């Protein structure tokens, strides 16, 4: 993947930030871009600043929607035009319907985490389609970070619901007294299955975004006039679907670990 320039080069402090990271951290493993061993860390600084940009955009939009919500008389009847409030309402409706189908009755306490993740991932994916911007989910660091968040979250809720039963469910999923003899076989497999979940979530998201951007660049380099148009459509579709898949898998993992004793 080449080092392509973006709008972030126009920021005044960008060159000094790049120089600082390259001089001090260029041999460290953590700051490498992740896929190609010869690449240094220019890409990583892009993605941190891009993530900051996404957060700033989301904060501004949310404040606008909140200001409109405060005027209660005006928003009792939803307006027929496309306003910022209507977009957020559609989004929240979709996320809540996904959560209600998978988690069941107790879904309200998980809405903040899943909703925030969904908003962040959706806007990050969509921003990469605009020429000149970089999506933060293009990088493995961001997406595995989101996966680790989900991992910590469903583990916390598993321990909250079942106590130490969260771990004994892994060793003895069936709950019988003779299941304990099979526990040395079950426990490694279930532990590996549990710990691979954040990695698979992160790699799925990053891989889809990287592949999508590569295809877009390849066809835009071939003929920039009209040829990339179906690939932009594909990019929109992939961004949306990957957000839905991420949130659905998060809800499935939460529901797996917080369902009350059903046997």
């Amino acid at each position, binding site marked *: 993947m080449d080092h392509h320039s973006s709008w972030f080069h126009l920021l005044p402090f960008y060159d000094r930030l790049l120089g600082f990271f390259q001089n001090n951290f260029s041999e460290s493993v953590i700051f490498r871009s992740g896929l190609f*061993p010869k690449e240094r860390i220019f890409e990583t600084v892009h993605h941190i600043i891009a993530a900051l940009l996404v957060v700033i955009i989301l904060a501004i939009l949310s404040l606008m929607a909140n200001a409109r919500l405060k005027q209660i008389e005006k928003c009792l009847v939803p307006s027929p035009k496309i306003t910022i409030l209507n977009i957020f309402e559609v989004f929240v409706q979709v996320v809540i319907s996904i959560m209600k189908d998978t988690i069941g009755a107790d879904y309200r306490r998980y809405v903040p985490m899943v909703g925030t993740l969904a908003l962040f991932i959706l806007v990050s994916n969509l921003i990469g389609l605009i020429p000149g911007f970089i999506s933060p989910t293009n990088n493995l660091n961001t997406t595995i970070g989101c996966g680790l968040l989900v991992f910590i979250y469903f583990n916390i809720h598993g321990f909250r619901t079942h106590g130490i039963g969260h771990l004994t469910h892994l060793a003895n999923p069936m709950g019988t007294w003779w299941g304990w003899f099979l526990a040395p076989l079950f426990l490694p497999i279930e532990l590996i299955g549990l710990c691979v979940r954040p990695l698979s979530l992160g790699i799925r998201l990053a891989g889809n975004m990287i592949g999508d951007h590569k295809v877009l660049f390849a066809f835009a380099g071939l003929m920039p006039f009209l040829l990339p148009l179906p690939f932009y459509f594909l990019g929109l579709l992939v961004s949306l679907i990957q957000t839905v898949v991420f949130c659905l898998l998060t809800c499935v993992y939460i529901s797996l670990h917080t369902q009350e004793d059903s046997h």
Partner: protein
Amino acid sequence: MIKNLCNLNMLWGVLYFFIAKASLAEALENASSNPNFGWYAIAASIAIGLAAFGGALGQGKAAASALEGIARNPQASGKIFVPMILGMALIESLVIFSLLIAFILSGKII
């Protein structure tokens, strides 16, 4: 018959042959410093080829059963569509894992 032999398309074929010969000679002498350069290329192509083949089979089966369900009951198409998309994305994620390996391997050629 002489007109067939001097067909203009055959001249294009002759031109392509010489271009391919030149590029092959250039590729042969431009071996990279890594002695396993050729193996990485073959491995990357086989990886992504097999992954695309298996992924297409799996997604084809998913789409086939979704379409059959819609054909039996056209009113349920909204309820069938979302699980179909979800299933396809999960099948595709395995193909994406193999694509990343192919990217890593093709990065080693450089």
